[in-house]
């Protein structure tokens, strides 16, 4: 029987409230006697705090002031490593590090008060780049400035070089990128010694905040409550940071005895919260006479900023994706996350993969140019085939046909005809046109044994009127969580989409189904919703109130009878790792992800050699993502991801000065507008995946991975110049014309 609801573009669950302006985001909420909070931050990159002075002209007696000394539990933001304080205690390690927090009833007084606080410092030397960190001239974290190191080994890379027809080297780098959700970070906290603490806020991961607040307050589990409010975009930027701002609001609420709201303005949000890790990827690759990869070494480095936060996990995903969708008989990936004195970098859609895949896909084009093959032909000869294995020796079991995906993307973009036409056109025009390809993959769910540790729990509850609620901590922030999880439950139970809704995301009401990250919601949580719904159906059948395969009306009648007889009707399902999946955390070897989504993207660009500006004229995004649960939402994810990645490639430059972002405004940090995006043409291939509900895989991060290298490859094709870093701004392209490249000489042996 074909699905009735899954695969159909039903209206978004919270759509009406959003288009009518009724949806309540955290800044739309207000409590009686509420205070507003603000943060005093470090103005230097690294040093000792020698004094705090409250300057004149401010009615300080009306303010609540909280420092590290006011923290009842531990002054540490619980995540992976316990190194980051909520409030600096004696030393600061990056600009914008929180030192103290203030609260007052008048929101407008706060900026004046923050400006009136004078912090005395004894400066210490600071470092701000991967290179400075690896030189270890100054140790700013641990014993060697290193948060984490991984090595992935397949085959024997050391033996391949003598057989190579070509050895090609390259170095590629990517800059920081701001998530730039349009709703800034914000929370409201309420505190009582007897009742405990409640936080309402804009966030992706309520149980991360829950855990962090337990550590901060010393309260047990049941005295900490976290509620997600409507969240105006996140993209990873509200994965770990909400723990910090929630902690600050809780401390102020505790000391003042009143509810406290903290809403960042844009400047503070951009300067102080996390961004995408800057990266450097070095490749050394051996290719044989037939244009086949013999093997390669990849050195992947990321700048983690001043505290560990999520850097080890970002590094892990980047390292695992560094070899891309190619068959490497031999490969070694060395990956390292470095500490610097910049605000900690964090989660952002793609999570390390856009960085290492940028390096890889630019390098693939460079190899093709070096050995005299076209970019498509070199890829065609090396794409992974079913039965071959990735860098971690995960054998591709699914019936994926990457050469077919490549051919189809070339056809959809009219690649060959355009490349030929442009080579003629470019001779006589100052507007140079080019085409660029990127082939890539993105793993769904937590890496390796991550899902095992998360141990996610999801429930489905039927009410007496036959309406159904999905109980999960999976949050909606635009991607469509609410809609797809309700579709899956309705489909499974044989009822209508309108009969199902999400329970409020409140840690008192829903089980911990893990964080809403890592392209895991559709595949992992969706599957748990499906199995919990099946469990609920089985309960009704086992109780004798429902025969199998009954109608919606009979389901509703059965729920009524069951609940009147026994009370609650709930069914829970806990994650169980698929039996045939094995991952070795020590060797970084095995099945890194239950499934990958696969893609080939093609960008068409024009480079104006008078202004050195680049426009993307057409964009083909072809991907295999398993079953598409909701065509409009899925296409919306791809279109949005491509636009965000166009910004990553061409516009979005974080300008640093001693570790501080100096362009922390939308005026001078430029994201794509409606006039900058090309037609984004989205195509899906659907090979049902056994690990996801109705065959679905993850989709949210995939579109962030491919556009940047496809665009840079197109710019290189258009101009014949050498580029290897993003963001690629007009001034960088100008430099490419001024400094003639030395590409095919020094970096190529033989």
């Amino acid at each position, binding site marked *: 029987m074909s699905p009735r609801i899954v695969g159909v573009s039903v209206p978004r669950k919270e759509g009406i409230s959003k*288009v009518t302006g009724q949806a309540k985001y955290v800044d739309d909420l207000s409590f009686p006697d509420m205070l507003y909070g603000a943060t005093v931050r470090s103005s230097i990159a690294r040093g000792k705090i020698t004094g705090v002075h409250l300057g004149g002209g401010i009615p300080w007696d009306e303010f609540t002031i909280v420092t590290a000394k006011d923290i009842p539990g531990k002054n540490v933001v619980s995540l992976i490593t316990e190194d980051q304080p909520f409030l600096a205690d004696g030393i600061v390690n990056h600009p914008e590090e929180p030192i103290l927090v203030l609260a007052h009833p008048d929101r407008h007084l706060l900026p004046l008060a923050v400006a009136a606080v004078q912090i005395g410092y004894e400066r210490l030397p600071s470092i701000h780049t991967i290179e400075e960190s690896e030189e270890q001239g100054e140790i700013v974290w641990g014993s060697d400035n290193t948060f984490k190191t991984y090595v992935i080994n397949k085959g024997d890379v050391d033996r391949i070089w003598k057989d190579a027809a070509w050895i090609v080297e390259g170095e590629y780098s990517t800059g920081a990128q701001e998530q730039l959700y349009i709703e800034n970070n914000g929370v409201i906290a309420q505190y009582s010694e007897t009742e405990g603490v409640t936080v309402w806020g804009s966030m992706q991961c309520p149980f991360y905040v829950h855990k962090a607040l337990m550590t901060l307050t010393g309260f047990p589990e049941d005295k900490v409550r976290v509620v997600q409010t409507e969240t*105006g*975009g996140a*993209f990873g930027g509200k994965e770990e940071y909400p723990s910090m701002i929630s902690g600050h609001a809780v401390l102020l609420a505790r000391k003042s005895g009143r509810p406290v709201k903290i809403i960042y303005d844009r400047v503070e949000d951009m300067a102080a919260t996390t961004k995408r890790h800057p990266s450097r990827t070095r490749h050394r690759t051996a290719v044989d006479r037939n244009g086949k990869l013999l093997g390669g070494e990849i050195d992947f480095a990321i700048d983690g900023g001043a505290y560990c936060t999520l850097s080890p996990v970002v590094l892990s995903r980047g390292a695992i994706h560094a070899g891309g969708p190619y068959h490497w008989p031999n490969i070694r990936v060395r990956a390292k996350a470095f500490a610097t004195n910049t605000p900690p970098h964090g989660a952002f859609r793609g999570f390390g993969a856009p960085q290492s895949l940028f390096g890889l896909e630019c390098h693939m084009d460079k190899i093709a140019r070096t050995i005299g093959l076209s970019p498509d032909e070199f890829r065609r000869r090396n794409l992974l085939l079913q039965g071959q294995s990735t860098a971690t020796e995960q054998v591709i079991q699914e019936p994926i046909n990457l050469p077919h995906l490549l051919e189809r993307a070339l056809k959809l973009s009219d690649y060959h005809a355009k490349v030929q036409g442009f080579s003629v056109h470019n001779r006589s025009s100052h507007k140079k046109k080019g085409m660029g390809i990127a082939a890539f993959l993105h793993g769904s769910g937590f890496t390796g044994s991550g899902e095992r540790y998360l141990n996610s729990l999801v429930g489905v509850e039927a009410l007496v009127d036959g309406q159904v609620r999905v109980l999960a901590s999976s949050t909606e922030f635009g991607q469509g969580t609410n809609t797809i999880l309700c579709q899956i439950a309705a489909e499974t139970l044989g009822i209508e989409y309108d009969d199902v809704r999400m329970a409020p995301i409140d840690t008192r009401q829903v089980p911990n189904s893990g964080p809403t990250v890592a392209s895991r919601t559709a595949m992992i949580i969706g599957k748990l919703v499906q199995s919990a719904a099946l469990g609920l159906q089985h309960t009704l059948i086992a109780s004798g109130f429902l025969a199998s395969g009954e109608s919606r009306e009979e389901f509703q009648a059965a729920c009524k009878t069951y609940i009147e007889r026994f009370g609650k009707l709930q069914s829970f399902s806990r994650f169980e790792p698929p039996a045939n999946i094995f991952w070795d955390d020590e060797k970084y070897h095995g099945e890194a992800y239950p499934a990958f989504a696969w893609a080939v993207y093609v960008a068409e660009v024009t480079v104006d050699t008078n202004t050195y500006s680049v426009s993307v004229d057409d964009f083909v995004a072809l991907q295999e993502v398993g079953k598409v649960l909701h065509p409009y939402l899925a296409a919306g994810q791809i279109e949005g991801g491509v636009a965000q990645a166009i910004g990553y490639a061409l516009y979005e430059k974080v300008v640093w000065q001693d570790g501080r972002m100096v362009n922390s405004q939308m005026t001078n940090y430029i994201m794509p507008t*409606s006039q900058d995006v090309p037609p984004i043409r989205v195509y899906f291939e659907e090979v049902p995946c056994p690990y996801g509900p109705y065959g679905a895989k993850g989709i949210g991060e995939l579109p962030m991975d491919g556009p940047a290298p496809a665009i840079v490859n197109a710019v290189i094709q258009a101009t014949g110049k050498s580029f290897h870093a993003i963001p690629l701004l007009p001034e960088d392209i100008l430099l490419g014309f001024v400094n003639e490249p030395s590409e095919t000489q020094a970096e190529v042996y033989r």
Partner: protein
Amino acid sequence: MSGDAPGASQRKVSFTVNGKLRRVLVYPMQRLIDVLRNELGLTGTKEGCGEGECGSCSVLLNGDLVNSCLIPILQVEGASVCTIEGVAKDGMHPVQQAFLQCGGAQCGICTPGMILASIRLLQLHPNPSMEQIREGLGGNLCRCTGYTRIFHAVQEAAKAGTAEELQQLLVVADDKP
């Protein structure tokens, strides 16, 4: 930010919001967005950047699309303002309907401003070209959609909405209670 020096005195300002005459006691340099959200409880108007770049706070002021974060309240004396709360009348406006159907709203935070910008552009160009749509929405940033589905929504609304419905907001804005 109030924009007023400490010690500035409050005064009464009268203006029409969504067809109703409202009187507020405010500081003259208070921003329109703050008065709408804090004094009048109209929280559908969103703040994204506070400097006129993102367009989330877009409202119609005497029929023109403006960023309410850049408008001092004194400038609104006697004017007509339409916010997202005033768009739906008897059921949703064709533009709201089209955003819902086409997937034009994802996280929803830019949506109120984007809908007002779309309404304004359809008033100016009832059958807009793609270039007119891109230009009409050029002051409204969306980080989720890549704009594609918003373009579809505007095209659908142009097909669905009668000229009369699209002009409706201008008429409403001129009503006096």
